[in-house]
């Protein structure tokens, strides 16, 4: 094994096959306990709170009663026009003209509910199922449950150009083993911390790794039974592999003009959500289990208190890119086994904040699922006439998580980890799979 160290030609799947039993390699790919259509997941997270009332939940009565005073608060009508789209005729706001074209692939949930009205807690909530104390991220849980297909890449990648609310807690493995932590990948010269070879030439680094292999082999001779030593030797091979594989994943030069156009990405650019979406497809192709994309950070995001028009640049940043991703996945036959999730930490109030803005609203909001195992072109759940509360078919964030795990072939009640004397789950002691969404 040590001899293979300096052969840059090693391909990932070889290592995947060689990954050994689970006991040795916590990231070895595992078959899900239940049959599942989705093999991987792309999690599109919109930071700051996307208004359900300006995206996927049209409220004509709110429009009709706009300006009415209700308990000292002024109702604000939807600030963007809605139209029906696709064969399904689902209403989508004019903020998302591209996504609207994909609506027949989406299962829009209009009755999502969460537990907290502050960004920080709401962000950890939708990621970890905990609105109070720190817990492992959904991506870490999936990595823990299923391992990963490509041993030269991490199992859980987070494409986040900006730090979101709650810092890195959204992709932290917390008490799960650290290998399941999300690896943050950023656009730019060093997309992953310490990824770029710092030794002056490849030849020098290879020589160093050769000598290291020799040192470690000798050290291991008298300590043959300690599997940690072998694991650490392997970690250098993986690191070396990643050092070469990751730039390849991020190298978009071989993508056609047509593909770039689809995402709305200029050649050579690594800006914006278009770059994130295209990289996500390339990660998915190469077997990364969980790719999370965070569109913005803890500022300059969807938190449009002052005026809902601030949603326009946010929507522009993501709309074509997401539609491009869905279309691209579909044309490559990958949408069948890739689950795409579009979500945010909470919705926004039916009444004003500022003059034409809205405040935080966890009591009902919208998200959508698409791809592997999902019924497209449907709407699930309803909010009430003004979009204040869930009116029908509540989908609590725990239910949302349970459903996502189910789509990956995991029973959310059985994916547990013993910590501090208790078996923990992503869904705590809650969660029901929403069966109506399943294809």
């Amino acid at each position, binding site marked *: 094994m040590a001899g293979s160290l300096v052969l840059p030609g090693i391909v990932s799947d070889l290592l995947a096959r060689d990954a050994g039993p689970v006991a040795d390699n916590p990231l070895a790919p595992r078959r899900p306990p239940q049959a599942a259509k989705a093999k991987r997941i792309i999690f599109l997270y919109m930071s700051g709170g996307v208004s359900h009332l300006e995206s996927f939940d049209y409220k004509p009565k709110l429009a009709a009663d706009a300006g009415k005073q209700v308990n000292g608060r002024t109702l604000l009508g939807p600030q963007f026009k809605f139209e029906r789209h696709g064969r399904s005729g689902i209403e989508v706001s004019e903020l998302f003209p591209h996504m609207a074209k994909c609506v027949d692939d989406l299962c829009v949930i209009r009755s999502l509910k969460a537990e907290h009205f502050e960004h920080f807690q709401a962000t950890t909530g939708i990621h970890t199922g905990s609105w109070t104390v720190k817990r492992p991220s959904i991506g870490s849980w999936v990595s823990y449950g299923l391992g990963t297909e490509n041993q030269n890449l991490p199992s859980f990648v987070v494409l986040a150009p900006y730090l979101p609310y*709650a810092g890195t807690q959204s992709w932290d493995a917390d008490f799960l083993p650290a290998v399941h932590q999300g690896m943050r990948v950023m656009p730019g010269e060093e997309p992953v911390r310490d990824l770029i070879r710092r030794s002056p030439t490849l030849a020098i680094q290879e020589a160093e790794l050769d000598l290291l292999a020799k040192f470690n082999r000798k050290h291991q001779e008298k300590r043959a039974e300690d599997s940690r030593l072998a694991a650490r030797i392997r970690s*250098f091979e993986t690191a070396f592999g990643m050092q070469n594989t990751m730039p390849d994943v991020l190298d978009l030069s071989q993508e056609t003009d047509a593909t770039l156009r689809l995402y709305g990405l200029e050649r050579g650019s690594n800006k914006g959500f278009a770059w994130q979406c295209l990289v996500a497809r390339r990660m998915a192709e190469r077997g990364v289990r969980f790719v999370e994309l965070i569109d913005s950070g803890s500022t300059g995001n969807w938190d449009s208190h002052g005026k809902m028009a601030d949603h326009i640049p946010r929507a522009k940043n993501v709309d074509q890119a997401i539609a491009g991703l869905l279309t691209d996945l579909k044309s490559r036959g990958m949408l069948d086994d890739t689950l795409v999730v579009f979500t945010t930490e909470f919705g926004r109030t039916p009444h004003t904040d500022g003059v034409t803005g809205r405040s935080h609203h966890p009591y009902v909001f919208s998200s959508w699922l698409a791809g592997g195992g999902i019924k497209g072109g449907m709407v699930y759940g309803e909010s009430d006439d003004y979009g204040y509360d869930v009116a029908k078919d509540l989908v609590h964030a725990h239910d949302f998580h349970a459903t996502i795990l189910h789509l990956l072939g995991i029973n959310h009640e059985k994916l547990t980890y013993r910590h501090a004397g208790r078996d923990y789950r992503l869904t705590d002691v809650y969660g029901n799979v929403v069966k109506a969404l399943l294809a």
Partner: protein
Amino acid sequence: MRAPIRAASFSASLLFSALLILPARAAVAADDAGVAFFENRIRPLLVEQCYDCHSATAKKVKGGLLLDSQPGWSKGGDSGPAIVPGDPEKSLLIKAVRYLDKDLQMPPKNQQLTAAQIADLVQWVKMGAPDPRTQAGPTVARVEAKPGIDFAKARQFWSFQPVQDYPVPHVKNPRWARQPIDHFLLAKLEAAGLKPGADADRRTLLRRATFDLTGLPPTPEEITAFLADKSPNAFEKVIDRLLASPAYGERWGRHWLDLVRYADTSGCNADVPIPDAYKYRDYVIASFNQDKPYDQFIREQIAGDLLPSASESEHYERIIATGYLAISRRFSSLGEEPHLTFDDTIDNVSKTFLGLTLSCARCHDHKYDPLPTDDYYALYGIFSSTRYAFPGTEIPRHPRNLIALVPRDRYEAEIAPFEAKLAKVDQEMDAHYARKVSLDTGKERNAADAAYKKSNDERDALIKAAPKYDHAYAVTEGVPVNVPIQLKGDPKKPGREVPRGFLQILGGQKVPATGRGSGRRELADWLADPRNPLTARVMVNRLWQHHFGEGLVRTPNDFGARGQAPTHPELLDYLATRFLAGGWSVKALHKQIMLSHAYQLASTENSAYAQKDPDNRLLWKFNRRRLSAEEIRDALLAVSGALDRTPGGAHPFKPEWEWRYTQHNPFVADFPGHRRSIYLLQQRIRLQPVLGVFDGADANMATGQRPLSTTALQALFMLNDPLAHQQAEQFGARVLAASDDPIRRLQLAYELAFARPATKDELRDGAAYLKAMEAKFVDAKTPADKLPRAVWASYCRVLYSSNEFIFLD
């Protein structure tokens, strides 16, 4: 943060109630139509869907709720009346069947009623819930009382039994044993038919002991001195030297900081800095270095401010010690959610000092251990009777209630008036804030906004011109109050009140009702009581664990039923007894452990034994361990010669009046440097990057044992991180400067990195590598004068990356 969103939404739901409510009807005397509706649509539904758990015939009545009579639902269960006649929106029963609240879903387990059934129930409640079943059955008596905990039985569990002084067991081979510890271990090995393995060589032993006690590698001089010392107590002298080194407190203080989830920031949404937190960190380090008796260490951290002190400086130190409580995690952007902060305190106190998971009892009695909810709230009362320093957050952004560390005269003359000014501005600020958020847009709102801003500016100005005085982020006594149980852990659902006191399984002492204190003074004594069966056991187990890699109890924070039983219960008690008899001296315990033969064994494998005892529970060999995150970073710096040994001190935070941290722009900083890792900034919102890579402790929870991972990121760190490269260059330069002889250089590099001389083969390979790399660096266009350093840096990178560097035999 903007307007009070929560309040807004409450008013929203009130609005909807108003829209949906039909005129309520007095429903006690149900009319015929109503009764008919009940008989046709409701009764069958209740019988079929609810009676299994909510009727006199139920095997076990759930939640104390009966739905088989009108008085049953009217009186309701644990959560109150189930139905408000005429008002479905206020009726818990309707809420439950609608599945709108994840905590209240009936029938449970996703067996939701059909839409038609729900509509019927709503209709019925709107009609005033006519119900002819006016007689409460004999059923209330059958509501099963919560089965109490049988404490007498629970006390039989090993960890709640008093610590016993076991006699040192006989062994077949007493000559092997050097300490009573060895007798206990050997007796078990002999019983299993195993023999202890070979001894570690002296270099291995020195490297082990030095890292264990100081977190640093031994220097070549220390190695030479130890090898030259032929006296029989040479190793004992080493232990004494290491225990006396200031580095000892920096290593063992770190273990303690792991437990108490120490951080320099609050953990609130803005993760604001706590400029005074370092004083507690330095206090911990100093306490270990002074070998402060452990019981005193406990008392000071829980109630140091209340203890009699011999001097002013001792009093200050003890106030700083209560920083342990003050550093409890903070939540939200508004300084809200104190119940989560108290939960964090309770969780930490119980795990750190007692090895119990009491926070499980926040919402319900502990499922496995004899820890009822009452005990949780008995402690909760003590902490909510305590005034914690407030670190500031997004709103309000200024710290409050810091404790002045000044002599009484000066305090009264100068500081108290200043604090009064601060308090006055704070009060005004709070009032302005409350007013501003109660107003919608408009003139008045603008005025309130301006007034609020003005009071913030005043506050900044006051602090900027503050008298220079020292203060602590600590606690003091608040208003003594017993608290009600929070049903299901929800502070909005108060239950019965519980008197402040201690865990029932450990004695159940109460805070005297006549006393005026919070109860911390008493709690400190209960925790530090030598008769407390857990305190000493838990601590000696921690010491054992950090010397042997695993504790005698392998779940150091859980001595309950879900934890592991001790591998050597008699030894655990023997050590606890000695610990108590020795006046809780931690250093004496180290010495006792390290002088044992078992500690001095080699980590050599034995495949036959590994078959029988794969986890080495019987300790037939020493456990090899990977260095911790701090040890790795500190060793890189120490070996290169770059380590800055300056102890203690504050972080370079911006002055308080410049803070504008919010959840949108939280405080984030690195403050890099070359000091020991324990002095690096510890944030709650993110791990210190280098330490995070190597499994550094998460400052959000009590870490009793760090999970050690092997990841590609760690390898990437060694391959490519600027710190690894800088230190390899410096290491190379150090070796180059030390001698002109290439062989002597290689020897020194091996001594520094591995604490051993290089073998002949290694010298030959090393020389060959250095030679061969020259050409490669020439190819890489390295200038001739930089070649030696470049080549040596390359070689040192390999030494740093090797398994031998990062593992300790």
